[in-house]
């Protein structure tokens, strides 16, 4: 009987240990009561590497690529398998977002009670 609840495509919570896990490789990421991002690798990517300029940068101010002085892509990877679990489009230096903060007690109550555990 599974005690893991899938929260996103790549994240699940192991209810008994109250830990975030990577769904791709099972890696134990962080406490489920904390920001899962604290257990991931983080990279500041120039957005032009993803959204490449379509127009000639030498000729035009706006090129279809984000302005790297306004926008960065902050990428979060599983340290074990390298899966990109999440990303954020942020202005440079902007505080990272604690995006998922679940009520773990309620989550356990619901799923474990349902499973008769």
């Amino acid at each position: 009987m599974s005690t893991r609840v899938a929260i996103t495509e790549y994240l699940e919570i192991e209810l008994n240990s109250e830990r975030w896990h990577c769904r791709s490789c099972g890696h134990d990421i962080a406490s489920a009561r904390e920001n899962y991002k604290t257990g991931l690798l983080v990279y500041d990517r120039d957005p032009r590497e993803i959204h490449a300029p379509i127009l000639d940068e030498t000729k035009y101010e706006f090129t279809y690529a984000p302005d790297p002085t306004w926008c960065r892509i902050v990428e979060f990877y599983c340290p074990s398998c390298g899966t990109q679990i999440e990303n954020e489009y942020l202005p440079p230096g902007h505080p990272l977002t604690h995006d998922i903060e679940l009520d773990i007690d309620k989550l356990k109550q619901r799923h474990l009670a349902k499973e008769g555990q």
Partner: protein
Amino acid sequence: MAENLNDQEKSILQKFLDENVLFLGPDPEIMDNHKLAPESAAETRALAVFNDADQMNLVRHKLQTACNESFDMVEQMGAAPGAKWGDLISGVWTASGDLALSSAGGVLLFSVLTQHPVKFIIKYWMKEPTVGVRPGDIFMHNDARYGNIHNTDQSVIIPVFHEGELICFTGAMVHEGENGATEPGGMPSKAESPFDEGLKMPPFKVGENYTFRKDLMTFLQNSVREPKLQLEGMKSKLYAAMRMESRIKEAIGEYGLEAVLATLRRTLTSTAEEVRRRLRDWPDGTIRQNVFPDGTLRENVLLRLRLAMTKRDDELILDFRGSAPEFVNRANNTVLASCKGMLAQEFLTFVWPDLPRNQAVFEPMTVITDANSALNCSANAPNAQSMMTFFPSFTAAQLAVPKLLYSSKFKATDVVSGWYNMIVTFIYGGLTQHQELVGNLCADLNGMGGGARATRDGEHSIAPIFAPMADIGEQELIEEETPIMKIVPNRVMRDNQGFGKFRGGHGYQQIATVKDSALWGFMCCSIGSKFPSTHGIFGGYGAGTYPLCKVKDVNVFDEMKDRRELLRFSVEEIMNERPFKDASYSTHHMGMQLEWVTSGELYMLTQGTGGGYGDVLERDPSMVVDDYRDGLISKRTVEQIYHVRIDEARKAANLEATAAAREAERGKRKKLGKPYAEFVKGWETKHPPAHLPFYGSWNDPKLIYRGTPTDTCPADAMAGVMMPDPKDVRIAQLEAKLAQQEKV
């Protein structure tokens, strides 16, 4: 009221105050409340005698069919592009003013807004001797401050009586387009106050005995650029409302009055109950999401919209405190009720499209904002372009919802990534080839790229975020009515993709010009030229950024007369190859105020993509190759984004090489990525960078930045921002340049 007055004096004073209100402005008691009205005595009586679920279902379907029928009537009869292509809604309100049922298609965010003007009519006009509400009366409204999206939308509402008793209201709302604003087309991004935004109609009576008053009609026609459209739009909405009235009377004849009253009321309460039931299935907790609109349409600035969405038991709280302040002389501000409407759209269309279309879908939800902020602006701030802030607020909610929905057991739809959220099209004004003065918009804004889903790719240019069943319009019809020619009307753009395990749907590019008009202007109104407006989910990437491109000082009709080889079919080719020798080529952000156009000049826009879903390295290599073969992505994207290797001889993915390339990329990520704590140390700054014109909170939601790291205000005492005229800014820049040259 003075404390030392006796009861009689207090009563006289109260009567005097009630009878001498100087101005019936938007009523906070109505505008701040999106909840259902209490059950009336008549509804209680009706529910006591008519409560069979199957019978109620029959009545509900009859009324729903009436809504859909009237929707079709307006769509067929309407003259405005918005009407023709589905940017409307029709519905039935209870006698207390709650919208109980509306058409299945159309602009569903109206569903959570239209109760406000009806409730205003009930509260203020029912007993007002100079107005009154009687059978055959016709009311009209458009001002967002009394409950609407923006004042280019006009509504017509009629009361329905049975044996002398008011039993409900019927009506329709349409994006009419023209409304006499400072710029044609009803959405003036140049507006610096509400008084630049054209007609500002609080709910008022425009007709009796099912007939419009000629004097008021003349006044309204005299206030807009398209008098014929004004008349025609009002008539089509009235006929739709009257058809619904007939259908309701038929339902009363067939099932009885109690059946109709009970069905309308029960539809609302059972919808709210069902939403609460579904919310209980979501995990409790808080999801946070930021989005960053990058302009006011007159200049590039960076706004922060901050959402903390808390789900607790059976309620959802959407807390936007800490978001950007209002701009008191820019039109990108949102009236809170409009914001609620747009947020409701997420649930009506993208989460629970199976529910009845009514305001009760949003009943279990609460929206919290700072007063005088971009999402809850004051009455003195213009709001014609509120889409520039409330569309991004929708996106924040749309990106947050999957993080609660994914683990839920019940899903009415798939989990979906960010839908492209901007209205990329041309608004126009001028003289047509038929010598008619017009102002409106091209309905191809309805072709936003769909977000990727948990199970499949997003659709290309499929539907706008605000209307599930709207269309983009036929270019041939546009050319019959206006001098706009789309050299390239709707062609998807290569690499315009929200990359991911499943990719977002592509948006299209359009290359427009003008022919056979002596006076014609274009404007456009989108953001996202420096900072993407739409993001992906679960590791998927978002949209790119989109410029307005122009080719001026050219007449392409002359240039290409004998040289068809000059024709190019993409913005990329035209702008990079520059086929017209003496023309000037330029790019801009997508907020262009009305600009006069000479025949044969090119204006080019691109719809953006929906967000991607999941890690790009998990995309099926064969799907990458399909996209490459279809011309949707370049070789660069194949190799550098998806890390797929193609066997050119077989025109198929080389699975072995792809696996190796992807493994190498995973290894690279592990090398490049820093542990969280270490990264934060080198990344986070105390204030916004000095080079960014940043508006909103940074690390403390209670402290709001107003454009520079040193100009701040408390969130609970938000000070609206006044922007300089961009022309003055440009003049100052040029003068400084000139002064510099003179020194040399």
